[in-house]
């Protein structure tokens, strides 16, 4: 299995008046064909920065300072804007957080999907684009005739589906979904996640699913990368990470998601809060909150290395 996406030592910083915000550092992971990678972490951990870096749509001040992003064999970091434009939507597509609000309210949903198709494939005739828009809506579980509806005639869940349809309009090989469950009711969220799983199977679609919600990552992803303060602190098969979380942060995070199936427990949290990325703590960035802190943790950055079984990697001096 060759990977669809391989990120190597990606380092992205934001230039601000107060200095560089070190949003993502030395981030490395792979996404295999037809598989979903979950990038888990809380606000400020750098996961959205990684997504924006992959698509090269960082906001003003954001800069990829180091690293490679190899998409289907080609490093896309040095590519020109023109070349990147051919990859966006057609190779890699993204569904943003709060997607339901991204539809233009004054255009019909079908027309917006058609626009997405024709912007990236200008040779497609309007008639064919319309047919594709209809089948895309059906693919995501919305009746094809609703191409003529306006966004306000769609419910929140349907709008989310329409956005996913739009993202798939140019047949990308990789779909990035940023917080696909947030802002959705639990039943609609479950329907959306099921849709993503089905698309993965039916289309052989590779995915990167970004979320702070470990439960939805557990449900949809085969591999998981846990991010904290801009770094990947643990990486491996979803089963291994949940069954045997190695990094103290991962352990804390897993405990913070009480299962609805298990017995009643006193909820556990991690004391403190994520660091300021303008001035992160020295060496291991988790050290101010870590219950197992040792001297070396403040001096030497723990590298991401093998631990446990199989593909399981962790960045922690305990191992």
């Amino acid at each position, binding site marked *: 299995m060759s990977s669809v996406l391989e990120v190597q030592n990606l380092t992205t910083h934001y230039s601000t008046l107060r200095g560089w915000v070190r949003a993502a550092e030395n981030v490395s992971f792979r996404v295999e064909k037809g598989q979903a990678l979950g990038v888990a972490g*809380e*606000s400020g951990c750098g996961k959205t920065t990684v997504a924006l870096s992959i698509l090269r749509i960082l906001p003003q001040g954001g800069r990829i300072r180091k690293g490679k992003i190899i998409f289907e064999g080609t490093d896309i970091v040095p590519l020109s804007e023109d070349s990147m434009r051919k990859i966006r939507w057609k190779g890699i597509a993204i569904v943003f957080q709060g997607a339901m609000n991204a539809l233009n309210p004054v255009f019909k949903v079908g027309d917006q999907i058609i626009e997405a198709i024709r912007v990236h494939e200008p040779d497609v005739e309007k008639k064919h684009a319309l047919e594709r828009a209809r089948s895309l809506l059906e693919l995501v579980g919305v009746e094809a005739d609703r191409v003529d509806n306006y966004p306000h005639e769609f*419910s*929140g*869940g*349907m709008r989310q589906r329409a956005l996913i349809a739009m993202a798939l309009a140019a047949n990308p090989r990789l779909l990035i979904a940023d917080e696909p*469950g947030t802002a959705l*009711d*639990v*039943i*609609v*969220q*479950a*329907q959306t*996640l*099921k849709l993503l799983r089905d698309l993965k199977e039916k289309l052989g679609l590779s995915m990167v699913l970004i979320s*702070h*919600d*470990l*439960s*939805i990552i*557990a*449900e949809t*992803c085969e591999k998981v990368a846990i991010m904290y303060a801009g770094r990947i602190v643990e990486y491996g098969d*979803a*089963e291994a990470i*949940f069954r045997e979380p190695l990094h103290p942060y991962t352990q*804390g*995070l*897993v405990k*913070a*998601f*009480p*299962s*609805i*199936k298990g017995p*009643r*427990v*006193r*909820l*556990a*949290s*991690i*004391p403190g*809060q*994520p660091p300021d990325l303008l001035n992160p703590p020295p060496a291991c960035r988790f050290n101010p909150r870590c219950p197992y802190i040792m001297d070396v943790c403040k001096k030497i950055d723990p590298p991401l290395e093998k631990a446990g079984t199989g593909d399981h990697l962790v960045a922690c001096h305990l191992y």
Partner: protein
Amino acid sequence: MSDDSEEFVLRVENLKKYFPLRKGFLETMLSREEATVKAVDGISFNVRKGEIIGLAGESGSGKTTTGRLLLRLTKPTGGSIFFEGKDIAKLDDHEIKSLRRNMQIIFQDPFESLDPRMTIKDIVAEPLQVQKIAKNQEELEQRVKEALSDVELVPPEEFLTRFPHELSGGQRQRVAVARAFVLGPKFVVADEPVSMLDVSIRAEILNLMVDLVQKKGASVVFITHDLAVTKHVCDRVVVMYLGKVMETASSAQLIDLPLHPYTQALIAAVPVPDPSYRRGDVISGEIPSPVNPPSGCRFHTRCPFAFERCSTEEPKLLEVEKDHYAACHLYT
């Protein structure tokens, strides 16, 4: 009955809140009908002293409107709210004011609910000042410091002169909790108090609330869409759908042995943090519009067990097992 008012802090009976819908000019000219959004349409439940009761449901269920009704932030269209035996539903705003020291609220957004131009001291002191408690500045400051210690913002002196933007989201929410409990209220409505906080710090706020409730003997109405949390934090849960109560039970019973098909669907939809867990089918469809709710049982359009009676007759909320109520024709 006197024993009722001692056992129950709150008794809600057939509570209703309808909002009239404004129609466009042309529509108003052409039709006489007024559309209403029946946000809360006849709900009943009780809250005991020291109980944490979860009000669970998805968007459009009416739970937030219910929370506002309990605090009389809005006036009910019908029904009763018995606070310690006295019906507060029909009181006017003036009469409510003095009762307000007994009921407080914690909002969802820790960034919006604190005035950015007030110091932490002023924010926590405000309820004391509005209710004219505290004889002098020293007592005021003392009570504020106690409230801050209660929420573990210690040493309290360090926080008095700070402004909200200097605190993290979790700290701000602690201030909101301090503000809610500073008057020693009998009940607190917490409207999704942790959903905007990072996951790893939610537990501390929730545990804090559970501890304070025990310490102060207050009751909490905990509005949430997160059923997993209700299991671990709430004593009882009321499940709402389109303005009606579908099921009420202890949190353990509700999650482990749900009776109502909607509750079952809701629980089945909650993601489980276990990759080896194979979930069953997800129920289809979405919540219908509260302007035109389905006839009979509101859930019948999506219910896998619906039969003829469900679309014509609305099921009553009945005690199916001890202390476990459900509004469903499967049990009538």
